[in-house]
Structures are given as structure tokens and as C-alpha cells.
């Protein structure tokens, strides 16, 4: 009656709530083990007794799938996310153009709280990051905080996006790479780095940062959080995987800044 879920650490806030709701509803219990996607995937390959794996990037889910450890047909693209450019507090690296617009938008997003996803932020007036964005100018001699650009998904997406927008080369030398997205966020939140690239979901809950711009869709591969059941999962796992895709869960995820992907129906054998 107990299922074990291995989930990417960045999902912690939202997933805890979803799991609590499901436990209350079904009387089953869920244990959530949060760590980096890479560590979790390797552990599953090494025989970890997980029932469900939620990765922060398709690549690690692919690796687990490649080992033949997934329950056939159980993999879904559970969530999506958006990448945003953030600045520290109200005094983002550049005191000019972006300040008012972006600042107001971010504050609005925070104040309005739950229910406002990136799309809403978009609607609230935060501009899309464009090729014309004077990123290097605004950055000055400050640092651009990102997750490891060649290793951690948020960093990889961010690098791809900046490259696509033609902004990468100008700032590449100033990128400070953190070991995960949360650490990058902390660099901006403390003001050590004036700007950073993080997930919209991270930016949402951190009052010390403001969203300056959103990476346009298509500037990088879609950000996807795949979820799947392991081949030898407990039977209850299936119920939880479904609950993750239910509208109630979707609301929670959206409240935490994730995009809820068009849920694909589970194929049952």
C-alpha cells in the first residue's frame, strides 16, 4: 500500500501537495525521494525499488527506458515549464528600459500568487526575450547565473535559447554556472549575480527576484518532465500516475508555475 516515487528535486513543492491530496483521497501512502535526475536514473538502473520516476529531462528517462526498466506504455510527458530571464529584486542589473515593465510584471505575478502561470505572466506584460534584447549591456560586468550549461537541463535549455536568439556569444564569458537551477536562483536572489536564467516555476516563488523576460517557445527544445512507472512497480503506482494527470493535480502544478501538458490517455494493456 506504499509506493515510492523518485522525482527530480526541482518538483518538490508541487509534488508534495499532489501526493498529500492523493494520500488523503485513497488512503495509500506515497514516499517521495527527491534528488537530481541523474542520480535517480542511475539508482533505478542499479536496482532502486522505485515505482514511479519523474525526471526533469527526457534524456535521463530515455536512459532508464533504454535499460528496459519502464512499464511499457506508462511514460507520459507530465509537465512543461518555461525558461525566464530574471533580475535581482527591484534593482535589476540595468536601471533603465526593462526595469519598470519587467519589475511591475514580476511583482504582479508574485502578488497574484497561485493560479498565475507563465502564460499569465506573459499576459501580464512580461516581454518575450528577443534578439534585440540588450542582455550584455544590462549585465554590465555582472554575472549571468545559470545552471551548468552543458550538464543540467535548465542550463542546456538556456544556452540553446540564448544561442538561438543570438545573445549567447556576448555573455558566454560572464555566465556563472551553478550545480542546479535552485543554486542559480539563489545567486540572483542574494544579488551576487544581477541576472539569471531559471525556470518560470522557480522564479515564481522567490520574492527577491523579478522576471525580466520570457524565453520564446521554439528558442529551445520544449521543456518536458516525463513521468513513467517502473516495470516491477506496485499496482497502486498506476493510480498515482493517473492522479498526477488529473485536473486537481494540474491546478496545483500550475499554481507552482509549471505548464500542464496535454495529458495523453494511458494506454492500458
Amino acid at each position, binding site marked *: 500500500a506504499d509506493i515510492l516515487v523518485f522525482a527530480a528535486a526541482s518538483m518538490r513543492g508541487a509534488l508534495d501537495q499532489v501526493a498529500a491530496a492523493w494520500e488523503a483521497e485513497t488512503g495509500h501512502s506515497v514516499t517521495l525521494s*527527491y534528488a537530481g535526475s541523474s542520480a535517480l536514473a542511475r539508482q533505478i538502473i542499479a536496482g532502486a525499488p522505485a515505482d514511479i520516476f519523474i525526471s526533469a529531462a527526457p534524456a535521463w528517462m530515455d536512459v532508464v527506458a533504454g535499460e528496459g526498466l519502464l512499464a511499457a506504455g506508462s511514460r507520459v510527458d507530465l509537465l512543461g515549464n518555461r525558461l525566464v530571464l530574471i533580475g535581482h529584486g527591484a534593482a535589476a542589473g540595468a536601471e533603465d528600459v526593462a526595469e519598470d515593465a519587467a519589475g511591475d510584471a514580476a511583482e504582479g505575478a508574485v502578488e497574484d500568487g497561485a493560479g498565475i502561470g507563465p502564460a499569465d505572466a506573459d499576459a501580464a506584460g512580461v516581454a518575450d526575450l528577443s534578439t534585440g534584447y540588450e542582455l550584455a549591456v544590462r549585465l554590465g560586468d555582472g554575472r549571468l547565473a545559470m545552471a551548468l550549461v552543458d550538464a543540467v537541463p535548465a542550463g542546456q535549455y538556456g544556452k540553446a535559447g540564448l544561442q538561438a536568439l543570438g545573445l549567447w556569444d556576448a555573455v558566454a564569458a560572464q555566465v556563472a554556472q551553478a550545480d542546479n537551477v535552485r543554486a542559480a536562483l539563489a545567486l540572483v536572489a542574494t544579488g551576487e549575480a544581477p541576472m539569471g536564467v531559471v525556470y518560470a516555476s522557480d522564479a515564481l516563488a522567490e520574492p527577491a527576484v523579478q522576471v525580466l523576460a520570457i524565453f520564446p517557445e521554439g528558442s529551445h527544445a520544449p521543456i518536458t518532465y516525463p513521468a513513467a512507472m517502473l516495470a516491477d512497480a506496485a499496482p497502486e503506482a498506476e493510480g498515482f500516475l493517473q492522479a498526477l494527470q488529473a485536473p486537481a493535480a494540474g491546478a496545483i502544478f500550475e499554481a507552482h508555475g509549471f505548464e500542464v501538458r496535454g495529458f495523453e490517455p494511458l494506454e492500458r494493456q
Partner: protein
Amino acid sequence: MTEYLSPQEWQAVSLSLQVALWATLLSLPLGILVAHALARWQFPGKSLLNGVVHLPLILPPVVTGYLLLIGFGRRGPIGALLEEYCGLVLAFRWTGAVLAAAIMAFPLMVRAIRLAIEAVDPKLEAAAATLGANRLRVFATITLPLILPGILAGAVLGFAKAMGEFGATITFVSNIPGQTQTLPSAVYAFLQVPGGEGQAMRLVIVAIAISMGALLLSEWLARVVARRIGAKEG
């Protein structure tokens, strides 16, 4: 205090204590042996042993955890053997956390004990030998009591390290509440949630309190022992 921490946090605290204590106690005898070998014996492969002992210090903890996972996981060569012949499963159990913590603490422990052994006057050991004590008895009756302060120092270093160990543990046994979620892993999990710093700090304070308690206890014990030994020279 019950209100200060949630039940799950209490679990992490007590698990960490349990892991650190076992890691310290289990590795102590081996640590003393290895320290003695490095301090007093001459044998081929001594440098190698010395190097291996220091490895966990040199390697990034994640790498140590990764190597443990490969070696001691259920599918790893040693892990599979242990499970088959001893019925001992380490991976994703608190026992695995003990192994990880013990390995990470080992070099600190060995160094402290080794320094203490090297400080024992070999003339006293020689005197014991002339009184009929063989090597083992000399060790048990002369060397061991004289290095007690060093052993205490090693133990408390090891315990503190085991309480703080994170990278190797989470990589090896993951972060399963109630089973492998130690205090540092819980802190890590909090730090993944925006605004979780405050909660993380609450746990950090608990960790500090425990380790400081152990530290004070060890210092007190060391003083008692030192007073018993009295002046250096007989």
C-alpha cells in the same frame, strides 16, 4: 520541541543519529587497525593502503557515491555477493547510508588515531614486551589506553563528518524519507523549494546542536582520560 520539527523531520534527525553512530562505531575498530598498521608496521603495499584510505577525501562525494552504487548496489559485484551470502542489502537502505558515512569519515578517523599512535613512546611498548606481553597484549594494555584521546578525537571527527555527509549518501542510497533521508538530505530537499531556506536552517540548527553535543562530550572524555594519564612521562 516536538512542535519545532515535523514527524518526517524527526525521522530524518533520528535516522541521521543512527547512521552516524553506527558508522562511527563500526568503522572504529578497522580504523584503529589501519592506523596502527600505517603508523607502526612495514609491509608491501603500505603506500597503496594509505592512498585508498584517503580516497574518499580526495574524490568529490558524488563520485564516491557513484562508485558505491556501482560496487555495492544490488546489481553491483560486491552488493550482489553480500546479498546472496550475508543477506545484507545496502542499497537504498539505512545500512547503505551507514556504509557511505563510514567511508567518508574513515580517512579523518584514521589520521587522528594514527597521529596518536605515532606519539606513543616506543620505549614504553618495549618495556611492556620485556615484561612478557606479546604484540597484541602490548597493544591492548599500553598503546590502546595511551591513544584513547586520539581515538576520541577520531571518533568525534568521524561522527561529525557522518552527520554532515550528503553527496555520497544521496547518490548511493537516494533520499527516501524514513529509510535513507538523513538530516543533510532533508536540508537539501528544503533548499530545492523556493523559500525553503528558513526550514532548512531549522534542520541545520538541529544538526549543529547534536554534533556540538558530541564534540563537548568527547572533549570532556578526553580531559578525563588525560587527567588519568597525568604527566606525559612515567
